[in-house]
């Protein structure tokens, strides 16, 4: 009985209102962080054409009534579009979903990686990397799918994509985002997540290990890689790393990016801004949001006359409580912020930055982390960048500067490959709130006919939609041709 309650509270957690990790409803995942550098594959920042590295503007804390900035008057690519916010929170409506198979076999693979760092006491449960695999009975191509910021290898979005891909005849391997705490602990070689190139290298090495350990009866004819949100950028970089790898090369064939960021830092700064605008930046602002949500939920619940606060109630509540654009924005921003807190804590612990963890007295397994979690709730991505990320990479990467770290975290580190190699594809939406007009244009210019831009869907709000799935499958099969204008 208590466990049921537990699950329900998790549901509440994943409803856009509270926390933000796993499961059903609509949580939004978005972009993470920064930096990569030159010792890499095809990675030469080739910044021609449309996009000069945008500057990061750390969120300007402003309590200005959100409505003004977020009202539905925005441009298709602004923060402001009302329909985009709703799509982002609620995802694809069930009636618009592509046909999915009746059953999909599933197993989980837990793997200890040889290069892993020693596991800090508080992460005792994250020793092994956990990924999910669905095998076809006959020889088939393999689709590897990477989650967006903070997502584990079995998010609801991955589950939808798994169904669609398995139904189309692929073996499917779903992977956590390199920003997921379980990945940071079990797989990251640095403990500081968010660097596009370094994270993707860790991902690639993990994929090599996993594929080497698949049961022998699984026969793979071809390998493609996909990802949504940050995972999209990771997927493309993973393919580019494979292209320049000598031994152990996987021969990844095609890559499809779904709602990728162009500049990680700019996209995330946009989410910082969203948080500052819709919620505020002090602890008091977060407390105010919490009290308001609590009161709304309590009143709804009393009025409903129900005895138990169950899942059905919570779904209804999410649909009722979230009304204004500001509330949708708050849900998106909060969900991202809670993922960020996990990244931040891990980075702080691994680098000894001392933001919330005293490096001389790391927390023991039964210590309360309440204080750390409260402090991190109030910290923006710009704080992570300046206090954990940049200090680490400035030290470990010769000749780097804050500016170069930002530039390293743009998709143009693989710009040449994206432009010249016909096996990279992208799907995005004209109202995706992590892209601005210039970035969207850069994607279009770079990929040419290999990108499809839907009018509507916000950020990830149309994953699983009939058109999205049909186009994705065409792209993976190399049959994609853009619709006639």
């Amino acid at each position, binding site marked *: *009985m*208590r*466990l*049921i*309650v*537990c*699950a329900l*509270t*998790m549901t*509440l*957690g994943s409803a856009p209102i*509270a*926390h933000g*990790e796993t*499961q059903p409803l609509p949580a939004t995942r978005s972009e993470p962080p920064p930096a990569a550098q030159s010792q890499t594959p095809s990675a030469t920042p080739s910044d021609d054409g449309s996009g000069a590295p945008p500057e990061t503007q750390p969120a300007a804390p402003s309590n200005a009534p959100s409505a003004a900035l977020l009202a539905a008057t925005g441009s298709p690519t602004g923060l402001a579009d009302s329909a985009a916010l709703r799509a982002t929170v609620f995802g694809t*409506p*069930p009636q618009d979903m592509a*046909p999915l198979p*009746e*059953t*999909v076999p*599933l197993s*989980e*693979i*837990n*793997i200890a990686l*040889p290069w892993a760092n020693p596991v800090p006491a*508080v992460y005792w449960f994250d020793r092994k990397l956990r990924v999910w695999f669905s095998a076809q009975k006959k020889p088939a191509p393999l689709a590897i799918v990477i989650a967006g910021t903070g997502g*584990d290898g079995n998010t609801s979005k991955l*589950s939808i994509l*798994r*169904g669609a891909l398995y139904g189309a005849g692929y073996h499917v391997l779903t992977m*956590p985002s390199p920003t997921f*705490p*379980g990945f940071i602990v079990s797989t990251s070689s640095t403990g500081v997540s968010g660097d596009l190139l370094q994270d993707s290298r860790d991902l690639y090495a993990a994929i090599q290990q996993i594929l080497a350990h698949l049961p022998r009866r699984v026969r793979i004819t071809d390998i493609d890689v996909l990802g949504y949100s940050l995972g999209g950028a990771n997927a493309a970089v993973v393919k580019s790393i494979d292209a320049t790898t000598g031994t152990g090369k996987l021969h990844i064939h095609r890559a499809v990016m779904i709602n990728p960021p162009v500049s990680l830092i700019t996209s995330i700064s946009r989410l910082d801004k969203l948080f500052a605008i819709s919620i505020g930046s002090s602890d008091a602002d977060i407390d*105010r949001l*919490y*009290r308001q949500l*609590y*009161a709304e939920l*309590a009143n*709804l*619940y*009393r*009025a*409903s006359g*129900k*005895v138990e*606060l169950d899942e*059905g109630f919570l779904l209804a509540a999410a*649909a*009722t409580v979230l009304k204004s654009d500001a509330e949708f924005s708050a849900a998106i921003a909060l969900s991202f912020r809670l993922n960020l*807190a*996990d990244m931040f804590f891990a980075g702080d612990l691994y680098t000894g930055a001392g933001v919330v963890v005293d490096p001389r007295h790391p927390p023991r*397994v*039964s210590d*309360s*982390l*309440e204080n750390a*979690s409260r402090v991190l709730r109030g910290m923006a991505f710009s704080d992570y960048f300046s206090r954990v990320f940049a200090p680490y990479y400035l030290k470990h990467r010769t000749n780097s500067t804050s500016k170069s770290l930002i530039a390293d975290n743009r998709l143009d580190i693989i710009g040449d490959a994206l432009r010249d190699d016909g096996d990279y594809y992208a799907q995005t939406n004209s109202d995706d709130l992590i892209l601005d007009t210039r970035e969207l244009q850069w994607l279009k210019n770079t990929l040419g006919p290999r990108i499809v831009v839907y009018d509507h869907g916000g950020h990830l709000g149309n994953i699983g939609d009939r058109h999205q799935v049909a186009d994705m499958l065409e792209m993976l099969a190399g049959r994609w041709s853009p619709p006639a204008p």
Partner: protein
Amino acid sequence: MTGRHCSVWIVLWFACASGLGGCATQSVNIRSLPPETPAADNAAAAENAAELAKALASEPQNTGTKETKAVPLVTPADAPSMATYDPWGRLNRFIYRFNARFDEALFLPIANGYRRLPLPLRAGVHNFFGNLSEVDSIVNYTLQLRLVHGLRSAGRLLINSTLGLGGLFDVAKKFKLPSAPTGLSATLATWGVHPGPYLVIPLLGPSTLRDGIGVVGDFGVSHAVDIAHLYRANESWYLEGLNLIDQRANVDFRYYSSGSPFEYETIRFLYVRKRLIEDAGLSRGRQPQKTPHGVPAGE
């Protein structure tokens, strides 16, 4: 004699083999899970969405008029503190870790195996235990002076035990008598007992002192009533075991799937807020208990 020896050797052999096997595959472990059913899940989601839309369309009358007059609204100032009263935190964390390990090693694998059984069979088991719990509901609705609800539970028990073949089918639901279980904890809440300190119960998970007492009390009532002699017979242990597995299999929760070291704090926060919201609903006409500012929720 030989037969018994034989079986001892077989057990030992298996123990060694699995131990060695464990060593050999220690770095990789592949676990098969119940298959996903995306088509059916999406159909169910579509149905829920349609129901929800219908409910929302009829909502205004429900919330707006009748209820708001009788019930003082909860204001943001009434919300409990974001901190939670957890004086036994160290012990709770220890039990939470124990539960996580136990779940991972035993409870969840068993529940996953159980989930592979045909749905009608599992639904029958679930209904069966749900029907037994109506006894607690009848007693507690009576103690809460919510007699209509109590009668509904009694009606459900009667209908499902007979027409529903001993509770295997929830026939009463079709007669518009939906399930609405309650228990001792809700009764205590109705009469103003605070949740008290947060408490993690071995195997069962998040709770509060009051909820823990409720669990024990409810079990005591079932045991005392001993319907159909199910609770005191020698086979009762099997039944309790099956009950636990049924409960676990119906909960879509995995310890530490969040990967986060803050999971304990997150679950504690959500659990206690959920219970406080439910308490506010139970205290119908009366003003719900308030936690003074600066005092952790639940104290």
